């Protein structure tokens, strides 16, 4: 029995952290947030060189064929560094969906290019999870019409993977006729989001998505990745709060020696520490197709989002006025955690689902 990360997983995490601290320091993040997209593209190239685009692609299609625990480690490391790169949609959810439910042509067309970092697929499942603004798409005779909101990794994507209300998944080439892309500006400038308006656009169905099992797996994976991103980002916020409290002096002493501040930090640590174990456990449940894998994915996303909200608020407070400034830049982590919380279902929405999974409504 061993509950934890392997040496290989730990060294992957270290490699990503090192790459990001060398190549995506706060000044670079700020530049990206202020519109210097080419800097984000450089970082994106770097993570492709690290192999991150291929972790969920089977070896037979040129990928590394790693598991969800590896993917979780990566997502947590990217969250720590507020990495302005596509990952959760493009390199986890899309290849997982195509591997599980694509036909041979779709796999051959997309998987090797995903692994090689040549193609990015944006993923839009929000209509399946809970449609806002009357969004929704209809598939009829090979054509898709409608609107899809909050595509993950959808900006500048080469293709889109979209779900309809009944959980079928479709692939659309971004160069097809009839697509209008509108950028959605969220608080989190380290990642992008788009809205698609579709008018009879050519689409291919992933044939394996006639029942819900595939979209559920893709959704579980996406929720786990968002949870891991939040855990990584929250840990950095806590670490920064503790470090600041050991530098800043008031009333002639370090603010970290005041119980008011110590208890804020202890509360953050007490909530956050189990979340590391929780995301590993949820990943392992998905990897071993455990009976509770779906419930764990839901509860992990809901719980980690609550903890992330608390940590991001409290860590900002520990920094006092500085925490509120753009100069310190703590808000990049705060906003990243804020976006993760809402994507693919907010805690209340997901807990409702967790209740149904356990038959509480019967």
């Amino acid at each position, binding site marked *: 029995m061993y509950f*934890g990360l392997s040496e290989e997983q730990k060294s992957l995490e270290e490699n990503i952290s090192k790459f990001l601290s060398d190549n995506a320091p706060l000044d670079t993040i700020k530049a990206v947030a202020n519109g210097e997209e080419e800097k984000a593209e450089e970082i994106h190239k770097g993570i492709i060189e690290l192999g991150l685009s291929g972790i969920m692609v089977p070896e037979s299609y040129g990928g590394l064929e790693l598991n969800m625990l590896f993917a979780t480690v990566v997502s947590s490391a990217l969250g720590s560094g507020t990495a302005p790169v596509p990952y959760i949609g493009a390199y986890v959810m899309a290849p997982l969906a195509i591997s599980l439910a694509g036909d041979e042509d779709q796999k051959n067309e997309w998987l090797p290019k995903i692994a090689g970092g040549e193609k990015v697929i944006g993923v839009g499942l929000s209509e399946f999870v809970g449609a806002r603004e009357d969004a929704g798409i209809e598939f009829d005779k090979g054509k898709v019409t409608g609107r899809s909101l909050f595509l993950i990794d959808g900006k500048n994507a080469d293709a889109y993977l979209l779900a309809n209300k009944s959980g079928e998944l479709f692939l659309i080439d971004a160069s097809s006729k009839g697509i209008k892309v509108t950028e959605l500006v969220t608080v989190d400038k380290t990642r992008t989001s788009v809205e698609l308006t579709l008018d009879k656009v050519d689409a291919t169905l992933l044939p394996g998505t006639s029942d819900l099992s595939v979209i559920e797996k893709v959704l579980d994976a996406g929720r786990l990745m968002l949870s891991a991103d939040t855990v990584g980002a929250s840990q950095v916020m806590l670490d920064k709060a503790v470090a600041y409290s050991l530098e800043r002096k008031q009333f002639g002493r370090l603010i970290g020696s005041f119980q008011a501040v110590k208890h804020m930090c202890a509360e953050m640590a007490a909530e956050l520490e189990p979340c590391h174990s929780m995301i590993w456990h949820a990943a392992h449940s998905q990897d071993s197709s455990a009976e509770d894998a779906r419930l764990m994915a839901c509860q992990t996303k809901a719980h980690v989002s609550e903890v992330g909200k608390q940590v991001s608020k409290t860590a900002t407070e520990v920094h006092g006025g500085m925490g509120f400034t753009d100069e310190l830049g703590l808000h990049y982590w705060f906003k990243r955690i804020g976006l993760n919380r809402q994507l693919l279902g907010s805690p209340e929405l997901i807990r409702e689902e967790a209740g149904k999974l356990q038959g509480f409504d019967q």
Partner: protein
Amino acid sequence: MDLEYGPEYDEFRSEVINFIKENEDVKVSGPMRDESRINWQQKLIDHGYFARSVPKEYGGYGGDMDIIKLRIIAEEFAKSPIPKAMGGQGIQMLVPTLLSLGTEEQKQQYIRPTLRGEMIWCQGYSEPNSGSDLASLQTKGELDGDEWVINGQKIWTSTAQLAQMCFILVRTEPDAPKHQGISYLLMPMDSEGIDRRPIKQMTGDSDFNELFLTDVRIPAENIVGKRGEGWQVANATLGHERGSLADPNVTQNRLNSLIDLMKTETIDGQRVIDKPIFRDRLLAIQGRLMAQQSNALRILSSQINEGQDATLAKFIVKLQGTELRHELEGLAIDAMGELGTLYEDSPHLRDHGAWQQTYMYYLGLIIGGGTNQIQKNIISERALGMPKEPKVQGA
């Protein structure tokens, strides 16, 4: 990541299951030290389901210290209504202390009857003016010939009305700094000069006592460790107490009962669990519990895999576990509404009043065993490396 215990443990698990099945009709009753309790306790020791790693010569089973086997025993016993092994402060705190720091005579004399449940111990630590700041305790111990003479007052002494023995902290070196002036003594409770007064709690029970000690004389050899080393001796056992509070596997059983309750209780004919806000509160508690269960697996793993660090994971267990349990019991009361306030033997009472009783009891545990504010000091200082509060002069 590997959550399998391995085939060699499957066999052990079926042995435990068989034992439980063969003994599922066993009933123990009556007060502490009743023969039925002692016989059952001895049977558990004989099979290695209790006192497993305590050497045979001191009355234990004499088995290997195999954490996974202990885990399996705990898991299977928790699933069954079969009587559990007796606990208490003698078993949980004194025995581990004597095993590591006691003299050979002390081990021979005290461990066996304590394990068997024949000898009950109480803990004489807290004093009216020394609670969270335990090391400031003032009860005096003076050596007079071959006897310690003890004078002072202790409080929050659990089971003192039943105990034959007390492990007590007293100040024997009044001129030494406060942490270096304390000794750890073993005091027979039938000594002259001990006055016990029960403290009635908010639950209505009296689990605790005050002890008034006037010229209590005990033999000089009744000391564990050296003079002035009592603080270190006591700290070795406080760790044992904190680890035993708020096990998430026990909380899981309570959550299952809460789910049943919310499916049975109705408001205007609608099940409580079908009310969205109640259901959301239930699920939020389940999410917190799942996080704590994952945390517990990491701690278990760190105990069997050398080099795996789980320091912070361990420090937070008491704080998180007691708060969650209090919250869980409180939700059950809210789910019952006015019915949730019923107590003692009122009509319409649910589950013998256990939800209210446990709700209040866990408030006691949030305070006891090192208050949760003290836990936050420990987490921030020992795990996060934050400084101690500056000392106030004269304290």
